[in-house]
């Protein structure tokens, strides 16, 4: 009769029993699967036997009769195997595993309601009994009770006695307390920084150290090796293989990779589902595999490792891969996307269809998987803990699913940024006035860019609604935090701009904030239910001064702005298809109108700058349009006239003219267009090839048919219109570089030498003159603020020397406003440029150097203001 365990101590005992037995059964399952590979391994057999024996014993003690019976029968079978009276067969293994399942069911029932499950497994017991009698004759070898006892006793020494069981709730509590401690420590540090006193200082330092170590220690207690989740997989794979009639081997690598317990709990189910999918849909049936020249046994491999603050889990199979055509067809069939959308999908996006709810390509839905509720739930669960799921596949060869999961959630380093004026106290109770602090998680921060003065005004370019910043050659879409949060106030153009370059999955964008403070360790606290829905916040934290600060959710902000250059089109396309991943095949395109061509596109990455000039600045030189631009002369070519010669020049006659500037090495050219339309992110394949010179063809971009510009052809054609000299550096050409700052000189020297010039350096006017007396130079480049009198004085001194009369001098100024009046005087510099434009400088030097070569007379001073 089962004793009803009512009292607290009994409840504790039962709880212990349940935990232990579940652990034991898990281990047993693994061992069973191992046994199939090594059926004669006596260690394994003994271990399995002991497990059943232990369970049987405890069940008897606690009065769980059904459990006892099943365990007893299984124990008998095992004893046969252990003694060698029977050999291990698959059939026996299945039988034993069946018993394990029954035991588990009983355990679950006990956990839920205190009693065993209703079933009495009479049939199973009978079969077990028959099995244990099996090939009966050598039964005399059955272990005597004494032997069994001895075997069971051998166990205890091996078990790790240096470990202790702790309730997870207790660990959670500790974790919270440590979090509070971290916040309090931050506050103490802040106060002690403001106070004098060595004692306070020293003590708070110690507090700091201790807290950090404690934090680390507690986080470690919650870390478990991922093997804990993995140990169920061998059994799972075995079951799937048997159910589907396939042969599958499972490889596990990195089982000791550690993760926080809550995360392990969260990925258990997704992992199981993915592995099931591999077995069910991925690996082909044996005959199919052989027919494809693959080994009969399929392979599923799991690899776990740490990388960049995250845990990466790769689940791969060498099965048939994903048939994207079938996937697309199924999606259309299920009404998830429209046929025209399906056609436009690249490989990557087609794979993403698998993540849509209600999707399944299984021809018949098996009870193993394929009920169409799978991958979208996997993705949701993984994303809930801040991770990402990615799927890649090679048709015919296999599929790989990659999970990226953050290591720990609760305490993270973050960068504190501000909006508005944070120096005073915010007035009581009023929103929007005064400044606010926000935190950007360090893990999403790529770099910080600070723009001051002129750079701040000019560096951020705008195309209609999208701001972009050119970061080392790449156009980075930029959003203003103030705008994202819908706050009014401070005008966007101030004289300092801070851009935080953030990473959201595989996209980067810039977030403009107004102030940047320091990096701190912060404790992430979740927001209450009323605010949980705001996806631009990942939580909140308490700063050192006790104020609450919101933590920005980088992914949320990225999605909210539909960023990555003019995403309003993209978010529409995406929301139609409910896809989230950016495909590799997508590119960013600049759309514009020119003449009779209503909608033209060119990849944005090829564009150097977008400029606008007042019509009055456009000049004609030898029948071509030009404009003075950054110390250079920029040829302007109306695009429409290249594409359709003879068409009206609408672009060249509007005011202001719009030019798209392209660079080709040292050359620049501005194509005049009628209107810039938009910047769009899209994946296209050229649909229709065009016979027209200058166009690659037409494609659908942003849902509309668009003509694709053949940039190379256009530039070639345009260059034919305007003959550019080949800038070749004459042999032995030497440049004198007179510049006070060592740093700037170094940079300039490098540029000049790269271009092929010999460089002679001087840091003052006097030094320069001395050098000039000794070395013949072709061109002199001098800084206007040259130490020892400045550029002008240096020039005057040079001109006094007749041997230097013919040497052209190029002046480099710090900014445009500089002494422009003096530059207009005769006898002044041959050229005058603003620092920073390397191309312009080199072009100028090329020109001056070659002019010198081709003309013996002193060159006419031509001054171009930058």
């Amino acid at each position, binding site marked *: 009769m089962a004793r009803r365990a009512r009292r607290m101590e009994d409840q504790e005992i039962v709880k212990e029993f349940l935990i232990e037995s579940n652990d034991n059964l898990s281990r047993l399952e693994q061992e069973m699967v191992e046994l199939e590979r090594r059926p004669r391994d006596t260690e394994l057999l003994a271990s399995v036997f002991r497990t059943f024996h232990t369970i049987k014993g405890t069940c008897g003690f606690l009065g769980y009769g059904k459990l006892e019976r099943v365990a007893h029968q299984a124990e008998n079978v095992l004893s046969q195997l252990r003694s060698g009276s029977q050999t291990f067969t698959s059939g026996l293994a299945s039988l034993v595993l069946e018993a394990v399942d029954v035991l588990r069911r009983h355990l679950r029932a006990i956990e839920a309601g205190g009693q065993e499950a209703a079933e009495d497994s009479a049939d199973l017991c009978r079969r077990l009994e028959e099995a244990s009698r099996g090939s009966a004759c050598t039964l005399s070898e059955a272990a005597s009770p004494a032997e069994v006892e001895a075997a069971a006793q051998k166990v205890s020494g091996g078990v790790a006695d240096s470990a202790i069981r702790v309730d997870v709730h207790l660990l959670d509590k500790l974790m919270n307390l440590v979090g509070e401690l971290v916040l309090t420590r931050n506050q103490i540090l802040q106060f002690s920084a403001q106070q004098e006193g060595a004692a306070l200082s020293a003590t708070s330092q110690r507090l700091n150290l201790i807290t950090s170590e404690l934090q680390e220690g507690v986080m470690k207690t919650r870390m478990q090796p991922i093997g804990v989740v993995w140990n169920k997989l061998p059994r799972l794979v075995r079951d799937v293989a048997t159910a589907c009639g396939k042969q599958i081997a499972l490889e596990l690598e990195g089982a000791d990779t550690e993760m926080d317990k809550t995360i392990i709990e969260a990925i258990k189910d997704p992992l199981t589902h993915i592995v099931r999918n591999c077995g069910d849909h991925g690996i082909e049936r044996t005959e199919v595999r052989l027919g494809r020249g693959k080994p009969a046994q399929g392979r599923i491999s799991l690899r776990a490792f740490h990388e960049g603050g995250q845990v990466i889990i790769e689940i791969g199979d060498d099965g048939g891969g994903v048939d994207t055509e079938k996937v697309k067809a199924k999606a259309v069939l299920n009404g998830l996307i429209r046929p025209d959308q399906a056609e436009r999908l690249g490989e990557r996006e087609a794979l993403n269809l698998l993540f849509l709810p209600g999707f399944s390509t299984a021809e018949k839905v098996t009870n193993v998987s394929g009920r169409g509720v799978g991958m979208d739930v996997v993705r949701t669960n993984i994303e809930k803990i801040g991770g990402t799921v990615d799927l890649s596949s090679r048709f015919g060869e296999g599929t790989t699913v990659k999970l990226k999961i953050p290591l720990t959630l609760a305490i993270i380093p973050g960068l504190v940024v501000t909006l508005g004026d944070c120096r005073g106290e*915010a007035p009581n109770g009023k929103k929007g006035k005064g400044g606010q602090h926000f935190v950007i998680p360090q893990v999403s921060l790529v770099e910080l860019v600070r723009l001051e003065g002129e750079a701040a005004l000019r560096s951020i370019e705008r195309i209609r609604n999208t701001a972009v910043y050119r970061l080392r050659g790449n156009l980075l879409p930029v959003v203003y935090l103030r705008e994202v949060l819908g706050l009014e106030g401070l005008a966007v153009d101030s004289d300092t701009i801070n851009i935080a370059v953030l990473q959201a999955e595989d996209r980067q964008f810039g977030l403009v904030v107004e102030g940047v403070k320091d990096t701190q360790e912060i404790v992430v*606290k979740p*927001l209450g*239910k009323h*605010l949980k829905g*705001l996806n631009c916040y990942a939580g*909140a934290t308490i700063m050192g001064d*006790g*104020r*609450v600060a919101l933590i920005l959710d980088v992914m949320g902000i990225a999605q909210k702005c539909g960023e990555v250059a003019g995403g309003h089109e993209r978010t529409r396309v995406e929301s139609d298809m409910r896809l989230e991943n950016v495909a590799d095949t997508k590119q960013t395109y600049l759309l514009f109108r020119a003449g009779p061509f209503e909608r033209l596109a060119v990849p944005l990455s090829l564009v150097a700058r977008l400029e606008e000039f007042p019509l009055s600045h456009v000049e004609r030189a030898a029948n071509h349009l030009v404009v003075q631009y950054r110390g250079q002369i920029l040829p302007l070519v109306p695009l429409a006239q290249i594409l359709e010669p003879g068409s009206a020049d609408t672009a060249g006659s509007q005011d202001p003219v719009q030019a798209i500037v392209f660079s080709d090495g040292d050359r620049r050219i501005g194509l005049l267009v009628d209107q810039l339309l938009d910047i769009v992110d899209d994946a296209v394949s050229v649909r229709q090839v065009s016979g027209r010179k200058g166009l690659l063809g037409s494609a659908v971009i942003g849902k509309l048919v668009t003509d694709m510009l053949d940039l190379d052809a256009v530039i070639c054609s345009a260059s034919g219109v305007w003959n550019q000299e080949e800038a070749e550096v004459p042999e032995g050409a030497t440049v004198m570089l007179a510049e006070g700052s060592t740093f700037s000189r170094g940079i300039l020297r490098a540029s000049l030498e790269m271009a092929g010039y010999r460089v002679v350096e001087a840091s003052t006017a006097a030094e320069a003159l001395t050098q000039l007396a000794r070395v013949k130079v072709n061109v002199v480049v001098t800084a206007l603020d040259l130490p020892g009198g400045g550029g002008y004085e240096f020039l005057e001194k040079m001109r006094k020397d007749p041997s230097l009369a013919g040497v052209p001098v190029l002046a480099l100024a710090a900014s445009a406003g500089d002494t422009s009046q003096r530059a207009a005087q005769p006898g002044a510099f041959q050229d005058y440029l603003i620092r920073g434009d390397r191309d312009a400088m080199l072009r100028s030097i090329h020109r001056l150097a070659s002019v010198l070569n081709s003309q013996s007379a002193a060159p006419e001073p031509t001054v171009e203001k930058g």
Partner: protein
Amino acid sequence: MLTTGTISSLESSSRSLSGQYSTFDVAGFYFGIDVLQVQEVLRYQRMTPVPLAPAVIEGLINLRGQIVTAMDMRQRLGLPPRADGETAMNVVVRTEEGVVSLLVDEIGDVVEAESSSFERPPENLDPAIRNLVRGIHKLKDRLLLVLDTDQTLKLDTGNGQSLN
């Protein structure tokens, strides 16, 4: 099962008729919440506004290390905002889903009321307010409006103010 400190809403509704109430003033209206639902009352706490949050959420406060959402009762009840310079007091209530602070004008005393004085809310009470009131107690000198805390904290069905 009644345990000290928390009461399920079912329990509290059957108990609202008599008992002790924590009281407070909002724009001249006198409200009361079952004392067992109120964790504490405090004076104005420095608030961090949450941009993009629903208008009734005034911000977040730091309550001894816990971050608590503060909801402005004037807004919630559709009443005109406080005058410039006037600060709000915090009534911190405990619910199953967590702790929320209600911003009110003045904190009142704890009062006792009997079931005999309990009535349904009057018809001429502004619907925006009536929706959030379970009933009234006719006290000696004034009417005490019994606040329906659960309804107050539920934003998706509130007063035409939508969440998001």
